[in-house]
């Protein structure tokens, strides 16, 4: 609890939000990178289909997406059953896991699209050069592709992170708004607005904006300092 201008602010949701956003970003970079690379390399017409598929989570309103996630991830549904088979205990919804899964799905396009774009822009001749210097596929990826798509990663990471922070519909739907467990700051602000506690809403919003501004400026600043321009 924090008091600002005589208004009490609960910091819990803020920390939770940052945690979920960070985990989501991490997961999406880890999952999205091979996916984007694979798609960037694809030449078949499946590529078009995959590209469209990846963009789909954007098309459904988050609350609706959340609704379907509720259906898919329900504790007696096939997904949970499947995970149970591998020793998973517990429930996918109403937990941090659920929040992360929901955010990951919802933000997928923001991670994959810029990454793919960045990967496609890497000149083939540099990969050729690396191959003749005995770098295998993975080695090439880490030593040439990754550093040269820095800007793409930055875009992907900031879009994903910011988007998860501001995410509302999906986490609201899947999370269960349990104070201290799944109440993210976006829901918190919304609740304040709904119950006419505008002061709290204003303060929380301002905090998030300032915080985001600082973080983003730091990230972009670092990138500008250490960035490489290809081409």
């Amino acid at each position, binding site marked *: 609890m924090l008091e600002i201008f005589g208004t009490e602010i609960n910091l819990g949701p803020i920390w939770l939000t940052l945690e979920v956003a960070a985990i989501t970003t991490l997961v999406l970079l880890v999952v999205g990178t091979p996916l984007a690379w694979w798609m960037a390399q694809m030449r078949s017409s499946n590529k078009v289909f995959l590209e469209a598929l990846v963009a789909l989570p954007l098309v459904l309103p988050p609350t609706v997406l959340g*609704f379907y996630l*509720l*259906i898919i*991830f*329900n*504790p*007696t*549904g096939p997904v949970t059953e499947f995970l149970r088979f591998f020793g998973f205990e517990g*429930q996918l*919804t*109403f937990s941090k896991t659920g929040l992360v899964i929901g955010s990951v799905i919802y933000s997928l396009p923001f991670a994959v699209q810029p990454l793919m774009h960045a990967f496609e822009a890497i000149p083939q001749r540099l990969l050729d050069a690396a191959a003749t210097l005995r770098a295998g596929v993975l080695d090439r990826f880490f030593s040439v592709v990754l550093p040269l798509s820095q800007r793409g990663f930055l875009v992907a990471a900031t879009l994903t992170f910011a988007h998860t922070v501001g995410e509302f519909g999906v986490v*609201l*739907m899947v999370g*269960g*708004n*349990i104070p201290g467990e799944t109440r993210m700051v976006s*829901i918190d602000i*919304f*609740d304040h*607005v*709904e*119950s*006419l506690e505008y002061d709290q809403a204003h303060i929380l919003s301002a905090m998030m904006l300032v915080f985001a501004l600082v973080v983003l400026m730091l990230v972009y600043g670092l990138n500008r300092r250490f960035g490489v321009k290809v081409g």
Partner: protein
Amino acid sequence: ETANIAVAANFTKTIEAVGKVFEKETGHHVKFSFGPTGKLYAQIRNGAPFDAFFGADERRPKKTIEDGNGVADSYFVYAQGQIVLYSAKFPVKDQPLDVLKAAEFNHLAVANPKTAPYGERAVSYLKSKGLYDGVKSKIVNGESIAHAFQYVVTRNAEIGFVAMSQVVDPQSPVYGKGQYWVVPQTDYKPINQGALITKRGKDNEAVKAFMKFIKTPKAIEIIKQFGYNVS
């Protein structure tokens, strides 16, 4: 003449049914905009083109009048919500309190007590019966009563306090499935849903006619069919 009426989301279906009859009988035209009550309040406060406002509670309609955005003497309670305890798994019909006491479920869905009167009444009911502490850790908050209901329908929560209107509707996905128990009206403060004519709708004939119509027995009959009380 046409009237734009803002209506709390939980009353969506009911008022559409009423509106159909009204339009047939009077030749007036009504357009309903649905949304969370707090949001509708904020919209009216910021110049939304609504001629009347049907809230999900008394507080925000009254506040609209206080703000000077409503016609002072137009306020009335158009319906009272009824809480039911629903479960597809537990025998809530016969031993509701035992089920709650045993708390053998993982999640109990309740509308957010902070923003939805249904949730607020459900929580205070639990408290008055001394059951709250036992189930507190199992509670998941739906943002609205509809959202709490979705938790139950999708089986993410095995049990939940929902609105009567949601279980008696023949179109409801739980209609005739599982069990529900109507929480006695005497055990909680009535959920009065208040309505009013906004300043903008002051001279709108359609609104005046609709407000009159909704108090007719014919309309009250419909409202009751959807699971609301009208006193």
